[in-house]
């Protein structure tokens, strides 16, 4: 099994080297070599995951003397299967999609190299291997995003990605040095074992070692997963080839969630860092989703959707639901990968059908649909909207594991599920339909299926990832004062219900239009302008960069370039 462990990531390194050195002019053969190598890697990953399920124990395999060790634990194995699976899809798609592009063979070699590096990154058992792989992901991604060198925009946005990644590397390096200097080891299992023995070692600024490292790791994760203020690069990665966008949005951008999970034993003692992650994730989710809604470009819209999803993922880590974040990143990876790879078809479809909203007279006469569809009675709709999600979510968690309902992190996720579920039902109620009960029934059925699926999968997935019960400790670490928490939940519940009620009555009675008289429209347009300029974050960075470059240039002139 040790041989297989070493072969799995190195197979793709080997195929990249073969393509680079010997198959540069042989387009078809290089694509075949690349796809076959990825297929074998995926198969080997599955075999090793299967072996773990049967044998049931983790192991560390050493390749080098000082560094270069691979940790075969549930997290690594799940990530190996996920990464090689996504990569296989991207490889197969690229065979025809990229066929008319120049540097076809180089593209496949880089794709192989990128997959191999990610495999090393997710399975690194020591800090040096992790730093090497983490660093190289940024470098190889730069060349993949800048595949088309004839387009200056591709180079510009590849550079944005590279510099944001480099900025995010620094806290990870700092965290690594803090751990190495404190525990005198680069081995992650050794460091985690020592943290369990003595978690209260003091660092500085009143922080313990796990707290300091937790904050630093969170910052590193924010840069990789495009959290607010470090997100500007993500929507612009669309300038790279579509398969790279798919790999980027389905796999690479999820590195933040992986980092939280890899260092879960540190975060057990870093509650402050988890609280920060929750706030940053929440802000990112809201801003990413808001920006997604105002885009008129399919791929840009998907880019901001990824930003919003990454916000949710980091938020899940912030409440202590680490396994859920991994489940989320896998589900989002496949979902977003398929969205990107089918974006071209969607654009083609949009060109064929103009998408003009239907006219009521046209639908009544030509399409023979009733002109006056009906809605549910408002009381029935309100009851369904508010009560059904609560009942479904609570019961599903209660039947799976009743003690989970006492964890603050689970309550937040339940609350979140309730708000989104209720919002979906509320929006459904606003839709007119010939058979509103059937429409609402369909939505409820989907909701129940999604919730039960999520509850079962996240619970059993959590037990698989963390068989020694770390999950409960992470929930405890993310908790705050019980009274403040309860007050906050009650306040937010009233706020949301009040908001829905206000919207409903304002809509149905026309009261808002009479009171507002168009004044709100100015504020609405200002908000739209602000979001369409991406809150001026990128402009601010561009201005700052220009100032620094001018200063650097003047220094060079002053010192005569010596």
């Amino acid at each position, binding site marked *: 099994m040790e041989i297989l462990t070493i072969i799995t990531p190195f197979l793709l390194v080997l195929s990249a080297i073969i393509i680079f050195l010997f198959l540069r002019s042989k387009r078809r053969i290089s694509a075949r070599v690349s796809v076959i190598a990825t297929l074998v890697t995926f198969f080997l990953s599955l075999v090793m995951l299967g072996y773990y399920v049967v044998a049931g124990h983790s192991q560390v395999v050493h390749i080098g003397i000082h560094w270069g060790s691979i940790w075969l634990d549930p997290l690594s194995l799940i990530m190996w299967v996920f990464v090689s699976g996504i990569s296989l899809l991207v490889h197969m798609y690229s065979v025809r999609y990229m066929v008319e592009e120049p540097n076809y063979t180089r593209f496949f070699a880089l794709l192989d190299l990128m997959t191999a590096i990610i495999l090393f990154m997710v399975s690194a058992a020591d800090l040096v291997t992790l730093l090497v792989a983490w660093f190289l992901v940024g470098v190889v991604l730069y060349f993949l995003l800048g595949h088309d060198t*004839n387009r200056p925009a591709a*180079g510009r946005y590849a550079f944005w990605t590279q*510099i944001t990644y480099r900025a995010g590397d620094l806290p990870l390096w700092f965290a690594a040095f803090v751990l190495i200097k404190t525990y005198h080891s680069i081995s992650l299992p050794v460091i985690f074992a020592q943290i369990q023995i003595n978690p209260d070692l003091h660092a500085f600024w009143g922080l313990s070692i796990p707290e300091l490292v937790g904050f630093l790791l969170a910052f590193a994760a924010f840069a990789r997963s495009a959290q607010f203020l470090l997100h500007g690069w993500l929507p612009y990665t669309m300038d790279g080839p579509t398969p790279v966008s798919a790999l980027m949005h389905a796999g690479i951008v999820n590195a933040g969630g992986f980092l939280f999970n890899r260092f879960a034993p540190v975060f057990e003692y870093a509650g402050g860092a988890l609280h920060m992650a929750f706030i940053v994730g929440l802000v990112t989710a809201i801003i990413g989703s808001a920006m997604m809604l105002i885009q008129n470009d399919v791929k840009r819209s998907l880019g901001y959707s990824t930003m919003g999803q990454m916000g949710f993922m980091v938020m899940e880590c912030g409440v202590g639901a680490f396994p859920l974040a991994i489940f989320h990143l896998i589900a989002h990876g496949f979902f977003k990968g398929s969205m990107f790879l089918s974006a071209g078809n969607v654009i083609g479809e949009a060109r064929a059908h103009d998408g003009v909203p239907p006219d009521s007279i046209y639908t009544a006469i030509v399409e023979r649909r009733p002109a006056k569809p009906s809605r549910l009675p408002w009381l029935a709709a309100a009851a369904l909207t508010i009560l059904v999600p609560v009942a479904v979510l609570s019961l599903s968690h209660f039947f799976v594991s009743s003690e989970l309902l006492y964890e603050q992190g689970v309550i937040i996720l339940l609350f979140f599920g309730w708000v989104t579920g209720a919002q979906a039902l509320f929006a459904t109620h606003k839709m007119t339909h010939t058979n509103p009960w059937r429409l609402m029934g369909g939505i409820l059925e989907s909701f129940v299926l999604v919730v039960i699926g999520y509850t079962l999968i996240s619970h059993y997935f959590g037990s698989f990832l963390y068989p020694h019960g770390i999950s409960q400790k992470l929930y405890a670490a993310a908790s705050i004062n019980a009274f403040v928490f309860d007050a906050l939940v009650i306040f937010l519940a009233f706020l949301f219900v009040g908001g829905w009620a206000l919207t409903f009555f304002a809509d149905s009675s026309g009261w808002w239009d009479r009171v507002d008289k168009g004044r709100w429209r100015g504020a609405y347009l200002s908000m739209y302008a602000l979001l369409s300029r991406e809150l001026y974050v990128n402009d601010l960075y561009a201005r700052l960069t220009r100032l620094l470059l001018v200063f650097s240039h003047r220094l060079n002139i002053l010192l005569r370039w010596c």
Partner: protein
Amino acid sequence: MNTLIWIMAGTLLPWFPLSWIFNKLIASAPGFWAQALAILVFPQLGLLLLIHSGAWQALPVGPDPDLRVVALFTAVFYAFRAASTREVQVWARLMTTSGLALTWLLHGQNLDPLILQSVALSWSIPGALMLVWAGLLKQRMGGAYLGLTGGLATVLPRLSALVTLTALAASATPIFPNFFILLHVVKALPLLWIPGGLLVLLLWGWAVGRFLQDLLFGIYRGELLEDLTVGGTWLGGLVLGLFAVGGIFWGAHG
């Protein structure tokens, strides 16, 4: 006598402000081969002077705060200046100066002189290679300024590939030895000084990102250029490959 040794050593293994003389000396060497040779030899001479005069060994065990400030400042200052540089020769000199300054941070660790010389050589090799590539670019284009013509990846693919790999080596990209040396150097710093060391890494990333953007991207609109020969490319690639193998060896033996 001791002061004179320190001044000469600071010029050859540069720290600011003596690094200005180091750069001036290299820039004034006749031809790119002489410049490449100078950037390889000067730091070695500086180290030999320090070691054989006993000045290096005379430093107290443990880090000297003044020397640390000067070395870190030089590394940060030159990396910052490299970010706005589009002339390949100047970029190579500034980046090498920034890297070489970090060698001073290894004082007080009782390291073997051979290791110190290897460290200095690791910063010098990418600098020397880049000066050679800059000379070859100058022969073909009349200058090695990247601000005027972009898109060299299309017109000079082989030479651009070597320049790109050398730029990555100069900015401490794994698996080149500089990466592992940087790890060692930053690890040697006290905890509160580590952000200063990491700032160098960020500035190198910025400098190399801008450099590659100017080199590779855009549509080339100049005259047709003759690329490097296949043999020359293999030779350059072999040197860089051996340098990378050196990195793996260095990393493996910590």
